[in-house]
């Protein structure tokens, strides 16, 4: 045929497959779900093949696309997540009320993300950006909550409309919608740059779920259908990183704000963004520790991780941006894997409440391993990909001497041990509840994507340079200094890291431990209930399982902390009250009241007009 694959072809293909998925699901649910599996994989292959043609522009009808280094990177992450998660759709078809719509919207969301990452102009970016919003907005209410969708839309709208303001402001100032061109021009004009930074930055912050726009994450992620939560957390949220990257690095902010007051090595504007990131790390961590719902916990952890990403991007030095990119990548893989593990658990047990679960390692060992790897990466422990990114971020934080931000980051990093351990302990370890005795292993098809994601997490934890070289190319393509490598070593500013060596040494340590273990007498296998109870006889596993309000002593310390959602609720309540007042005062059924207002208004107008 001779059709060369281009971005346009991929987008059209995805749109067609979305329609196809809708039609096929109407005919046969499973077939439709398979379309959602195949389409992202084909797109993944196609985008991967486009690696060589980076820099070319494509046009589709009226939209123009440009394949940039970073667009390619983001698209790959997104497609990877979508491709892996879609296996789960097959199992969820029976549980959905609108399966056909779900499949279609699922692929539309994918199209939206790809389009946004590859758009050449702001209008294209905005169109696809909103496409992500409304496609996912319709999926979320298929889950447990309708309100969640409204909250999600409210925040998304705030972000995207801020972005729209920025886009038109820039268009008015520079007369173009072309992203690269406009941003380069904006860098020369501090006011325009500031407007762009704030407006598009807010869009990014909302998508990432950075404080104070983080409230939609736990609600949307926690209540979305189990198969869609990984997409939200692993995929769509990362689009926010893209937006922040545009204004922080592509613009680039360090040139635009060079005349501003410089504080801790960055401009004051960037520093404020960084502070928001720091706050969201703390808030995300504290809230995640509190949650009882498995999914909400991971959602809040996404808030905390969003903080790292925004800090890294806003610091705009080679190491921090590299770290942010690595973090985007690592967190996408890890949180998708974690959410998939939740989905598998939920599929088998029907609940995501941690206090109702326990001891599932004895029934779902592989799912446990997947979750373990995911949380090790999320907590930033070697040898997983998450460690690399955190290390890089810490390096540049220390380099800039950002004491308070680093305090938050350290707190978040150590705090993440707390919240990632809780599901591990409460869901997988501990006592198995009798009602879950008959729980089976996760189905094979579910295992495939989980193993792929975990495998990649480990692989890029051991050989992060595979990713970091791409990141380095991205950095040079936007005119930054690239990351430095030496073999398997990553050169930091005040030290270097050799993840491969760490793994080797860890392997040696593990082998020694294994040898010690094997040399000594074999242990006797005992029942799970045969455990130290001060010689008391206990027969109910639930009573011997510590999972309810796990960190109670710690939670007590901040139970009176201000609740951000209350602020928003207060605002909306005020809006409602004003509305009620307007409705009561102006829209009366008594003619004399309205006449009174007319008279007042006319007098005011006459007075105002004659001034």
């Amino acid at each position, binding site marked *: 045929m001779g059709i060369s694959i281009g971005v346009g072809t991929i987008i059209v293909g995805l749109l067609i497959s979305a329609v196809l998925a809708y039609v096929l699901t109407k005919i046969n649910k499973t077939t439709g779900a398979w379309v959602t599996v195949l389409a992202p994989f084909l797109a993944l292959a196609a985008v991967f093949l486009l690696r060589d043609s980076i820099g070319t522009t494509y046009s589709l009808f009226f939209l123009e696309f440009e394949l940039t280094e970073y667009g390619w990177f983001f698209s790959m992450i997104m497609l990877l997540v979508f491709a892996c998660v879609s296996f789960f759709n097959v199992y969820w078809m029976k549980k959905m009320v609108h399966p056909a719509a779900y499949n279609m919207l699922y692929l539309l969301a994918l199209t939206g993300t790809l389009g946004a990452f590859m758009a050449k102009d702001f209008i294209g970016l905005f169109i696809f950006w909103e496409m992500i919003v409304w496609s996912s907005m319709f999926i979320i209410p298929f889950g447990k909550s309708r309100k969640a969708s409204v909250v999600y839309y409210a925040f998304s709208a705030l972000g995207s409309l801020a972005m729209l303001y920025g886009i038109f402001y820039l268009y008015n100032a520079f007369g173009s919608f072309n992203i690269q061109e406009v941003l380069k021009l904006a860098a020369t004009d501090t006011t325009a740059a500031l407007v762009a930074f704030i407006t598009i930055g807010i869009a990014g912050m909302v998508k990432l779920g950075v404080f104070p726009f983080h409230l939609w994450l736990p609600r949307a992620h926690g209540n979305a259908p189990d198969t869609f939560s990984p997409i939200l957390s692993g995929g769509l949220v990362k689009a926010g990183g893209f937006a922040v990257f545009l204004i922080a690095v592509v613009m680039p902010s360090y040139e635009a704000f060079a005349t501003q007051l410089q504080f801790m090595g960055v401009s004051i504007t960037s520093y404020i963004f960084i502070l928001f990131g720091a706050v969201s790390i703390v808030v995300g961590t504290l809230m995640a520790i509190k949650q009882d719902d498995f999914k909400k916990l991971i959602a809040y952890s996404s808030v905390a991780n969003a903080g790292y990403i925004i800090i890294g991007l806003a610091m705009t030095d080679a190491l921090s941006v590299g770290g942010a990119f690595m973090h985007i990548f690592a967190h996408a893989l890890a949180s998708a894997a974690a959410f998939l593990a939740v989905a598998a658990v939920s599929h088998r047990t029907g609940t995501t409440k941690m206090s109702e679960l326990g001891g599932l*390692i004895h029934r779902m060992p592989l799912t446990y391993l997947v979750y373990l790897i995911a949380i090790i990466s999320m907590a930033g422990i070697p040898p997983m990909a998450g460690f690399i990114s955190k*290390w890089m971020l810490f390096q540049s934080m220390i380099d800039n001497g950002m004491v308070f931000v680093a305090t938050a980051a*350290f707190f978040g990093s150590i705090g993440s*041990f707390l919240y990632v351990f809780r599901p591990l302990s409460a869901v997988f370890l501990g006592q198995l509840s009798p009602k879950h005795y008959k729980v089976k292993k996760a189905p094979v098809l579910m295992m495939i994507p989980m193993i792929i994601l975990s495998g990649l997490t480990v692989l890029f934890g051991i050989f992060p340079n595979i990713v970091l070289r791409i990141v380095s190319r991205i950095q040079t393509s936007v005119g930054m200094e690239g990351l430095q490598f030496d073999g398997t070593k990553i050169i930091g500013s005040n030290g*270097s890291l050799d993840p491969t060596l760490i793994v080797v040494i860890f392997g040696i340590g593990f082998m020694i431990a294994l040898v010690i273990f094997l040399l000594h007498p074999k*242990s006797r296998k005992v029942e799970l209930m*045969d455990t130290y109870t001060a010689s008391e006889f206990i027969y109910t596993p639930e009573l*011997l399982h510590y999972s309810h309000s796990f960190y109670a*002593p710690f939670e007590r*310390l901040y139970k009176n902390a201000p609740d951000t959602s209350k602020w928003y609720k207060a605002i909306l309540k005020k809006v409602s009250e004003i509305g009620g007042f307007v409705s009561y005062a102006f829209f009366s059924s008594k003619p004399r009241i309205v006449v009174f207002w007319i008279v007042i208004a006319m007098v005011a107008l006459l007075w105002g007009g004659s001034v």
Partner: protein
Amino acid sequence: MITIIISILIALGILVFAFLWQTTLSGITRKIVGRYQKRYGPRFYQNFRDIFKALSKRGITHGWVYSFGVIMAVGGIMATVMFLPLFGIVPFPGVDNFFIYVYLFAVGMLGMAMSAVGSGNPLAGIGVMRALTQMVGYEVPFMIVVLAMIYGHGTSSLSELAAIQQTSGFLSWNLVKMPIGTIVGFICLLGMLGKKPFETFIAPAEIASGPMVEYGGKQLGMLMIMHELATFIEISLFVNLFLGGATPIVFGETTVLVGLSSVVGFLLKYSIVYIVSALISNALGRFKIDQVIKYFYKVPIVLAIIQALIVVFLGWGV
């Protein structure tokens, strides 16, 4: 390739030394504490006896994660030790990053926590909860102080940080340059070691030794090895970061003598720190876990931030 193998051999040597030294020192400390309490105290090699006894016993297992976690814990801690510089010998030069110790250490801790909770005992769960909560308390101020140090000295390599302190004798120690930081570091060290008053997660009388509640036999033995190694890591971190590492106590021309005396110097400082912490531990009672957190977020963290601000903004202590 050869260099890596040599490095690994050196690292293994450090591992063996660390184990032998710390286990002996623990025994000696037990003896000292015994005398302190007007007792005779055990033999100095009592800890070896305990460890090997435990290893030789036939324990129980609660499933694969129970044993796997232990192996992961010991493996992780061993790997951490192998990265440690000792007496100025750096097995893997250039990558002895401070953060590696913090996070590689966490592998071990995670393994142990996993294994402990995997036993299905709620007391283990509570113990792990307390350990993690306490970790949030002590790690953050400690890391802030170290941040200040790395910012000031421009390197995060442990050996280089130690070497910088060896340039002009006692006065270049961070103990002198960052006194507030050292105090914070020492308090955090007590927390790390789980010494009283920060003994919340073991609390034998309250939660039956917390995470260790189900261990017996070889798993317990391995965890004891891990404990000794972890202590070694923590104390050498402290010595290297604040007390100048392997500083010689004899000065002169003879390099061998100076070198040997620096070994002695390191071990001396090490012993003093460990014994002092043990004595403090035996003189104090135990905090409740929320008191621990409150304490760490009231005193050390504020001091740590003050220290960091002094370093970052005033440039003192560089």
